[in-house]
């Protein structure tokens, strides 16, 4: 019951955030110098075409009405046409999102699956070599620009050592279309194509490493700090005094509260993750939404830029909602207080 109302509260909050996001995007879209209709139609457009779009977007109407139209369009999934591809932005994003989703999802998983144990190891062997290694790795992965990591990995693994493919999701000649979920790892399993699965993983390896290192380091650091913090808490000491064995103390009573801060951090990190996905996708020619977004940004494809920002925002909000639910599940304090 209390969990349900917590979920409801979080969901409503997410909606509010999305509303705020749409205001900001609208402000940017309308605040730019120049005529949005002209910009989104491109230089080849005739004055009549421009006027037609001005009418459709209601650019001559009061701002508040324009905002209504804008949000109405968003709700119907209408993000306008892309100047670059001359298709609807919604269709473009639909085609590219799965690739980004797969990349980001694998990255988060890798960051968590590697980062958390690294943190636990560092906390367990505090001030010994595993700790030093983890600290070193996490500091350096946090301060190295993602594009540098991506470039170096690409050069090293792809060019110098020739061991991994450096671009795309699959080899050029591979005959496979991910038409079920759009995610190669899943579709290849569903279609019984181990060769595709294998290639998909090989192609994912470099981008995922480049993208996950920073989050992994952060998660390891936070897990370490939080393990150490929890281990010193009175309730762990109390368990000891009541004769609860060490393995139960560590793996049941200490581990669970220790996971709250890293999860929370993951939610915040996700923002940077999406941003860095833009760079990584570009470098590895990953056919995702972020690469589409960068091209749109560089070419000033206004509608596409706004669409990509909006979709990243929605993606971000949903991931954070999921994380909220996880945190709420792990930590009753959160769901009872209702906020992190």
């Amino acid at each position, binding site marked *: 019951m209390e969990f349900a109302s917590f979920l409801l509260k979080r969901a409503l*909050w997410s909606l*509010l*955030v999305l509303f*705020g*996001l749409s205001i*900001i*995007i609208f402000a*940017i*879209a309308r605040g*730019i*110098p120049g005529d949005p209709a002209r910009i989104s139609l491109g230089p080849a457009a005739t004055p009549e075409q421009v006027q037609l779009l001005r009418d459709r977007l209601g650019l001559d109407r009061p701002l508040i009405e324009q905002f209504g139209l804008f949000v109405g369009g968003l709700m119907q999934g209408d993000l306008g046409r892309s100047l670059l591809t001359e298709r609807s932005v919604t269709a473009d994003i639909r085609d590219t999102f799965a690739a980004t989703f797969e990349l980001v999802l694998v990255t988060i998983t890798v960051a968590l699956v590697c980062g958390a144990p690294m943190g636990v190891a560092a906390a367990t062997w505090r001030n010994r070599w595993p700790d030093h290694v983890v600290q070193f790795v996490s*500091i*350096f992965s*946090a*301060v*190295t*620009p*993602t*594009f*540098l990591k991506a*470039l*170096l990995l690409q*050069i090293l693994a792809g*060019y*110098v050592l020739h061991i991994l493919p450096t671009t795309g999701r699959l080899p050029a000649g591979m005959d496979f279309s991910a038409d079920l979920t759009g995610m190669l790892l899943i579709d290849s399993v569903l279609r019984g194509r181990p060769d595709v699965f294998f290639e998909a993983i090989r192609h994912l390896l470099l981008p995922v490493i480049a993208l996950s290192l920073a989050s992994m380091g952060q998660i390891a650091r*936070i897990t370490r*700090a939080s393990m150490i913090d929890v281990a*010193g*808490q*009175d309730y762990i*000491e109390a368990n000891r005094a009541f004769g609860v064995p060490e393995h139960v103390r560590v793996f049941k009573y200490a581990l669970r509260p220790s996971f709250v*801060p890293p999860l929370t*951090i993951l939610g*915040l990190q*996700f*923002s*940077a993750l*999406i*941003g*860095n996905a*833009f*760079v990584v996708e*570009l470098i590895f020619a990953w056919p995702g939404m972020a690469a589409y*977004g*960068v091209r*749109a*940004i*560089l070419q*000033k494809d*206004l509608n596409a*830029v*706004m669409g*990509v*920002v909006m979709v*990243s*925002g929605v993606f*971000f*909000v949903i991931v*954070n909602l999921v994380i909220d639910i996880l945190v709420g599940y792990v930590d009753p304090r959160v769901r009872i207080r209702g906020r992190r």
Partner: protein
Amino acid sequence: MAHLSELAAEPQRLSNAYQNWYRFSRNPSAVIGTAIVIICILTAIFAPLITPYPEHVGAVVNFRERHLPPSADYWFGTDNVGRDIFTRVVFGMRISLLLALVVLATAVPVGTVLGLLAGYYGGWVEIVIMRFTDIALAIPGLVMVMAVAAVLSPDLLTSMIAIAALWWTWHARLIYSITRQTRVQDYIEAAETLGASKFHILFREILPNCVSALAVKTSLDAGFVILIGSTLSFLGLGIQPPTPDLGTMVASGAAFLPSYWWESVLPGCAILFVSLGFNLLGDGLRDMFDVEDVR
């Protein structure tokens, strides 16, 4: 929690300044971080004096000496038009530091004041400010900055504005939570009862409590801002050529990887170096002040 700390026989109580200095000097990350930051700042300030070819900052072309590897003449080698990369890296560092300085000089005061107000007054002030920061924090920042930089004309100033416009929210949130904890302390109540002005309470009583957390956060942030700035310029949303910019240098040097690796790797290492400095400093300060995990 009193148990263990109670046991350690307290060392001679030292004067605060000395104690801080002692803890600082015993903290390797703080010391290394400070050293790096100072080196960077000094090189940035004295860039024209210490660089061998200060004129290479502008439009100098020397196609006979393009793509030279690092040597005694050109410590970091030369780029695709024959300019000294070391000189350009040092000047690029200047731009990066300037970016961090401007962004933080805008975002920190704004965030601090709003955080103080929200934390102290509560009520609708808190609702308006904190809900706004919540929304702002719930938006993928880098993506937003890219979008803003893109629709406006891409240059350094736009990037700065775009980053600062989002950055203050982090500080507001931090100051807000500290203010909330401090507000209920007895001495604040005492000051209120004695009729101290709001200004006095906010800036003389509460603000000093935030200083250590603020120092940690600002230092860590300087590193992040530099990273974000370099990412923007890597994507071509930064400063216009020929002015040197580290991110742009990495991007343009990347075309010559791996044969002329120095053209992208060394500027990349410079970014790493600066942001490492600020991060270590921030970490060190965090350990020193023993503030809770400030992100």
